[in-house]
């Protein structure tokens, strides 16, 4: 009856770290339309279980934004988003021309959340904590935007974040064993696991550990196949079929799937 908490917002996930993917996923879980941009336009690596976890509730497009025409498309995409999340290091950010001021040129009231120091292929605990902190900061910035119309740049340092959670003396953090959790009777009773239809059948995924009385959040979408939503995303930019086909041939965007 009531729409999801962030139903009115669109979020762009520029990667490349798991911390960024997790931050964007939390906003997607809460109902934002999240577009994950994959820079590899030619599909190579098989997708791991961790990848599927941090990319659910998102749409996926493939766009090589290191090319000039790709960068132009990305700028147009940014102008349609409320929040951009990125995890580039300083050098890469400059090379790609994706620092805050450059991004804001596409949309003056943009919110940019940058996470420094996340990891690429594996997700570590830093990624989880930093991703949650970045989602928190993005929500605070959305609240500020709602009241003032202003965007801003928020930043999270993945290493500092986890360290401050453990305390000055350091230590070891243990998480519950993942493989034992599906049998946990309390979690079962609370319906913590939700079924989601994927291309290879129905999969169970852990729910968001937050329950809202008016705007309940659920696992709605499995992680996208690479470029699965290219047609929708590039359609948002007003590209014609012919233009998409040209860009696909040039390797700027990945295949336009049916």
């Amino acid at each position, binding site marked *: 009856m*009531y729409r999801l*908490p962030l139903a009115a917002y669109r979020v762009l996930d520029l990667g490349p770290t798991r911390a960024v993917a997790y931050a964007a996923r*939390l906003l997607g879980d*809460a109902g934002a339309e999240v577009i994950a941009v994959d820079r590899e336009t030619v599909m190579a690596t098989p997708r791991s279980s*961790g990848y599927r*976890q941090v990319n659910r509730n998102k749409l996926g497009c493939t766009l090589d934004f290191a090319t000039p025409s790709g960068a132009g498309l990305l700028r147009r995409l940014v102008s349609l988003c409320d929040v951009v999340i990125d995890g580039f290091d300083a050098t890469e950010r400059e090379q790609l021309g994706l620092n805050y001021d450059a991004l804001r040129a596409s949309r003056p009231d943009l919110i940019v959340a940058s996470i420094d120091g996340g990891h690429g292929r*594996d*997700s*570590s*605990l830093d*990624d*989880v*904590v*930093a991703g*949650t*902190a*970045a989602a*928190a*900061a993005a*929500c*605070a910035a*959305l*609240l*500020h935007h*709602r*009241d003032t119309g202003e965007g*801003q740049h*928020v*930043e*999270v340092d993945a290493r*500092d*974040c986890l*360290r*401050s*959670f*453990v305390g*000055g*003396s*350091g*230590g*070891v*953090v*243990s*998480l*519950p*064993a*993942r493989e034992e*959790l599906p049998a*946990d009777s*309390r*979690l079962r009773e609370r319906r913590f696991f939700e079924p989601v239809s994927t291309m290879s059948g129905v999969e169970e995924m*852990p729910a*968001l*550990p*937050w*329950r*809202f*009385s*008016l*705007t309940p959040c659920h696992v709605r979408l499995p992680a996208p196949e690479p470029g699965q939503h290219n047609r929708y995303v590039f359609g948002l930019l007003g590209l014609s079929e012919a233009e998409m086909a040209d860009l696909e041939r040039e390797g700027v965007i990945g295949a336009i799937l049916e």
Partner: protein
Amino acid sequence: MTEALLSELLVIDLSRGVAGAYCCLLFRHLGAEVVRADSPNQSSAGEPYLNAGKKSITLDASRPEGAVLLRRLAEHADVLVTDDLPSNLEYAALSRQNPRLVLTRITNSPSNDDGRFSAYFTGLNAFVATMLPLVKMAILGRGQQVEVDGAECLAAAAFVADGRRTEVQRAEGEGDEALPPAPFKIIGLAPLTPAPLPGEHNDEVYCGLLGLSGEELSHLTEASII
């Protein structure tokens, strides 16, 4: 822009565990006014710096007169965070009096034995989960109840983080008793004053905000309700 980000917000911290106190500390970092309600019979639990910048009142909400005061306080509040809501208070009644209230209940709040990470991580989750209804308020025009479960927060993390055990190195020059910095850089972060003594702001909150007389305040103090 120098004004704190959430300076218009009033948050009531009714939590006993570290997770709720940390959640409310994050609101304080962003400039919200946070009133912590401590039990009059015991000293504030946990790490005192978790209450930095908050105001403290004493209140025994398990007694009828105390529950009345808490209900009156909740009428003025935007957010109430609790890990142990007294049975004489429930969301339906609180929201009838103040439809805009966001009530955040932390269940399975990690204990001291679970370690600081579990509590802080649950507190951070509670913070995001509380922000979402505040963002949605513009459209919905009303608050809601949010439940955040400590065990579920850790289970959710276990499905994303590879490796069950993570060793975290000692931070240079940082003691255990240091105020944890906000985990994000954002404009409008508020500088925090040291933690208050329990009940330090009883006058200000009970008389100033709720309009109680000095006589009523001393009566409540004698009866150990505050």
